[in-house]
């Protein structure tokens, strides 16, 4: 039975310029908080970011070392698989390219891993050439814990579950290793413009 239309119901949706928003998405001015678990609160003194796995030598940055790296401002549209999109979000972050500088690897894939156990897999080439960052600021303010602070991945060309909150590192892998949601129905790659939300899409 098709759903019953509720007279006059629209929800809280914004209009957007045509072609700006991927198929099936709705624009919001809010920043919905979605989370797979309780908000971690790792103290900055204990925080580090590591790159490990199929690398010549693992790398590690403390918070001070991470914040000393060259960073840039990023303005991006973000698209959540739950159908909301937020346009022109402004972040500050370190390019993944910067973190990978000087690292030798034959790996084609990565797994981003976070405090609390969340993981998500992204092909290495989707994190390079200016396509991805480790972001520490949103909207001009330090990234709040509920939005993934102190630092999260920012990979705007893929659905936002690929932008792992509370990220603590990247593991470079020879084989693709589907992560927390990719093993449970969500699409392995997640391109919003091809509407790759679920398995088989």
């Amino acid at each position: 039975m098709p759903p019953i239309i509720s007279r006059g119901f629209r929800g809280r949706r914004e209009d957007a310029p045509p072609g700006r928003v991927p198929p099936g998405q709705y624009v919001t001015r809010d920043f919905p908080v979605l989370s797979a678990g309780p908000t971690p609160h790792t103290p900055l003194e204990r925080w580090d970011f590591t790159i490990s796995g199929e690398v010549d030598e693992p790398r590690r940055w403390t918070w001070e070392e991470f914040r000393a790296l060259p960073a840039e401002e990023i303005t991006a549209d973000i698209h959540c698989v739950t159908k909301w999109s937020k346009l022109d979000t402004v972040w500050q972050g370190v390019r993944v390219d910067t973190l990978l500088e000087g690292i030798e690897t034959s790996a084609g894939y990565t797994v981003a891993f976070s405090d609390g156990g969340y993981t998500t897999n992204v092909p290495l080439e989707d994190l390079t050439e200016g396509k991805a960052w480790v972001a520490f600021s949103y909207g001009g303010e330090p990234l709040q814990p509920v939005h993934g602070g102190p630092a999260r991945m920012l990979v705007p060309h893929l659905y936002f579950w690929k932008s792992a909150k509370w990220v603590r590192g990247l593991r470079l892998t020879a084989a693709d290793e589907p992560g927390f949601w990719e093993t449970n129905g969500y699409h392995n790659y997640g391109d919003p413009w091809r509407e790759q939300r679920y398995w088989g899409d």
Partner: protein
Amino acid sequence: MDELMLDGNAVAGMLTEVFAVEMTTAIVTCGNCGTSGAVGAMHVFRGAGIVMRCPNCDNVIAKIVEDGTRMWMNFTGMQTLEITR
């Protein structure tokens, strides 16, 4: 404590529709810490999909994703689910 956190009551409709038995009183035994409790007392988070966690140890008890027609459920974090018919 997370103000966003819900409990198993929040997913009762979805689970009961699928399993066709009362689900909030179903008893979950956590595969990580062995604690048992009613589904209604489990901690529930809404991420890209639903995550149900053990209130004792935060272990992921269940993950649920749906697209309107298909539903993917993972219960590997659960040792057992006891329902009453």
